């Protein structure tokens, strides 16, 4: 009954979305305010109905209703409750419902919080947003119905893929989807602006917080996925350049570029048509991601079970939304003229270079991801493009970005000069180069990556600190004066410095792990001790145990340093009988300076166990840096101008004054 209610709610949401996609658009075109106003209740209704559908599906999973095909295929009665709940979106159909829930929530947020938007713009934004909803509701209802019943319910379900039975599933996809779908806001605003033919500072001030919100969730979502892969897959890799990772990374790169170019529109009224294009592209890449993951066109470890019919449907959605928006762009963008001017050396130019590097890096990732497909279609050759290519082709862009970032970040708007911008940075540069040189001389191996990475990280982190120090005149004014300046510094400036420092922290982690991780693989009998990375590890015992829906062999490894016991690690091998699949649960002793990572391998014929030990220096800095970046975004989001400054465009000119446009 609840399941049918959910299905009904989904159908109603589809119908409401059709109304929301048409009536307000016509209203905005004709200037009929009552038609425009339909958008707000429609967006609320769409969200409410999608929520009902989502909760109905979740209840089917929680109560293990195996008469529902999706539940029978992806759940099991013995599965822990957390994974019954998060298992709702651990499959194609359910994850699409989550996607819709978030899409309609964003629409709802514009409806509820957009009282200060001009009515026509609001109607158009919600209309475009609803047209995306229509397409995806149709996709769900016609190709991926989550509420389909089985004629004969099985006694128990097929269980969820054991790799997904992890707390990571509860957080990674929702964060990622908020990011992907959040970019639809930028897209809808861009389309609305193109239809209206008007982009101004006020428009940028509405778009930027949405992009920032999407970006920060995407940052956390990608970091969570990387962190999850790191501890779950059992060899401590944290990024694999897998197609599915790439398609989540490309929207992130473009959102990062959009975030920066929207500042130029907001503060300087320049780069308007470029920003619109970026907004379109960022969401287009989200759609491409959905297509790649769900169509199976590119082989990947985490693609969903695939179906050509779904692939074709998604291809149509891509063609309509990407093709349509680019056509509209080509038609309307030439009318968006940039009025403001700036010198060659200015922050505007710096942000142009930032955008150039980020967009070209995105294209490189895109090209590398698509090349196997292209090569096969064009020449019939089957080729692979993997980590060695991406490391080589992508890294230079990030190095370039890191090199110029602190300089351009301190340049003033309009016109600046390099000597002035560099003045507070010479010291930072000297320290960074010295640190790099120190690492270069200390390390035994010849990898150039570590010294370069450390120098870049220091340059970014200290550069961000130097910028703040300069802004609050630290050391050049009395301390009380500096404190007052710090308190008055806009949150956006704090967010900027923190975000840039986070980038440095991530670079530091990546460089250290890549250059200095050590590995030890050996056979160990219980009671034996071995040395790895400055520690002594003793395998005390391997015990059998039973989990709720798996059986496990758990090792007990005592870690000693200079003879003193400093901890116990319990790596585990699990076997999930329903899916007949094993998983490796690594035991990780985490500190800020290194991870001690141990996995238990197979029992050997002579009675020992294969044990792998990795020492990963500064591994946690990779994800810590991502969190710091996201925190920077969050702080920037609380900036005063977003809390109070938004309704700039609505303010009517004083009677008799010349309209601004």
């Amino acid at each position, binding site marked *: 009954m609840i399941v049918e209610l959910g299905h009904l709610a989904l159908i109603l949401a589809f119908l409401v979305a059709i109304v929301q996609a048409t009536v307000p658009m016509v209203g905005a075109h004709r200037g009929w305010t009552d038609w425009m106003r339909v958008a707000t209740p429609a967006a609320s209704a769409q969200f409410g109905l999608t929520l009902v559908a989502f909760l109905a599906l979740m209840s089917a999973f929680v109560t293990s209703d195996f008469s529902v095909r999706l539940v029978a295929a992806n759940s099991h009665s013995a599965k822990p409750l957390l994974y019954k709940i998060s298992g709702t979106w651990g499959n194609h159909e359910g994850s699409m419902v989550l996607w819709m829930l978030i899409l309609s929530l964003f629409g709802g947020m514009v409806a509820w919080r957009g009282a200060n938007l001009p009515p026509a713009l609001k109607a158009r934004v919600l209309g475009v947003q609803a047209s995306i909803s229509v397409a995806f509701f149709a996709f769900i209802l016609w190709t991926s119905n989550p509420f389909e019943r089985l004629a004969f319910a099985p006694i128990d379900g097929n269980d969820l893929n054991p790799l997904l039975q992890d707390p990571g599933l509860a957080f990674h996809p929702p964060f990622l989807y908020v990011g992907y779908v959040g970019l639809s806001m930028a897209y809808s605003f861009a389309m609305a602006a193109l239809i209206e033919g008007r982009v101004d500072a006020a428009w940028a001030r509405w778009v930027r917080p949405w992009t920032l919100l999407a970006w920060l969730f995407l940052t956390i979502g990608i970091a969570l996925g990387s962190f999850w892969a790191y501890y779950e897959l059992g060899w401590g890799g944290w990024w694999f350049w897998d197609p599915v990772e790439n398609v989540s990374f490309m929207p992130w790169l473009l959102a990062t570029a959009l975030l920066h170019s929207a500042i130029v529109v907001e503060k300087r009224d320049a780069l308007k048509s470029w920003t619109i294009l970026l907004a379109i592209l960022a969401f287009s890449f989200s759609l491409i991601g959905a297509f790649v993951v769900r169509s199976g066109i590119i082989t990947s470890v985490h693609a969903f079970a695939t179906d050509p019919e779904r692939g074709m449907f998604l291809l149509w959605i891509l063609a309509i939304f990407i093709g349509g928006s680019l056509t509209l762009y080509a038609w309307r963008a030439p009318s968006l003229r940039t009025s403001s001017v700036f010198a060659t050396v200015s922050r505007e130019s710096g942000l142009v270079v930032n955008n150039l590097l980020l967009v070209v890096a995105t294209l490189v990732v895109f090209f590398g991801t698509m090349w196997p497909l292209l090569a096969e279609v064009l020449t019939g050759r089957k080729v692979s493009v993997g980590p060695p290519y991406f490391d080589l082709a992508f890294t230079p862009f990030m190095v370039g970005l890191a090199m110029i970032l602190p300089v351009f970040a301190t340049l003033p708007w309009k016109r600046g000069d390099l000597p002035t911008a560099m003045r507070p940075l010479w010291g930072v540069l000297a320290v960074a180069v010295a640190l790099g040189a120190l690492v270069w001389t200390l390390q035994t191996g010849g990898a150039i990556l570590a010294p370069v990475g450390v120098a870049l990280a220091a340059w970014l982190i200290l550069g961000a600190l130097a910028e703040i120090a300069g802004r609050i005149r630290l050391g050049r004014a009395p301390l009380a004066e500096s404190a007052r300046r710090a308190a008055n510094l806009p949150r956006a400036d704090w967010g900027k410095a923190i975000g840039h420092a986070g980038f440095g922290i991530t670079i530091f982690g990546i460089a250290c792990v890549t250059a200095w991780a050590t590995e030890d693989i050996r056979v160990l009998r219980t009671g034996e001790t071995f040395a790895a990375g400055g520690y002594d590890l003793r395998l005390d015992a391997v015990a059998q145990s039973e989990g709720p829906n798996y059986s496990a062999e758990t090792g007990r490894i005592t870690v000693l340093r200079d003879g003193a016991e400093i901890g116990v690690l319990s790596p585990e091998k699990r076997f999930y009988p329903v899916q007949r699949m094993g*998983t490796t649960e690594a035991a990780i002793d985490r500190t800020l300076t290194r991870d001690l990572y141990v996995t238990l391998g197979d029992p050997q014929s002579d009675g020992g166990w294969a044990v792998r030990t990795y020492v990963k220096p500064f591994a946690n800095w990779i994800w810590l840096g991502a969190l710091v970046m996201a925190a920077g975004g969050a702080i920037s989001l609380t900036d005063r101008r977003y809390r109070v400054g938004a309704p700039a465009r609505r303010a009517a000119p004083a009677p008799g004054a010349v309209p601004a446009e």
Partner: protein
Amino acid sequence: MRRSVLALAVCLAPLAAAAIGPDEILPDPAEEARARAITSELRCVVCQSESIDESNAEIARDLRLLVRERIVAGDADAEVLDFVADRYGEFVLFRPPMTAANAPLWLAGPVFLIFGLALSAAFVRRRAREARRPRSGLSPEEQSRIDALLRE
């Protein structure tokens, strides 16, 4: 479909042989390091996105042993890669060779960059030229300031 499910089960189930095992390691650390570098550039034919260094499939293990055999036999790194690619096809190379057929892939980055640099340099120079040019009446910048003031 069934085949891919089967492949997935092999790849994700560290039951038979889990990634590189202790029995495979070469006694000479220098040779072993070379072997690891090579095997992490070779793609597992069963487990799609994994290198044979990470893969749990039986064939990946065979290939790991094959690579080590070639190294012990005295092959250079490039010779080992060629040896495997000759037998299993270009598909197993995670780093596509820099051949004419792969030229678009390798040139994509530099070409996009040069193209983008040219476009943005032209844009920035146009802005800068307009910034220098004095105009009668209001400069665009004054105009935009007036616009901004009116909007407030």
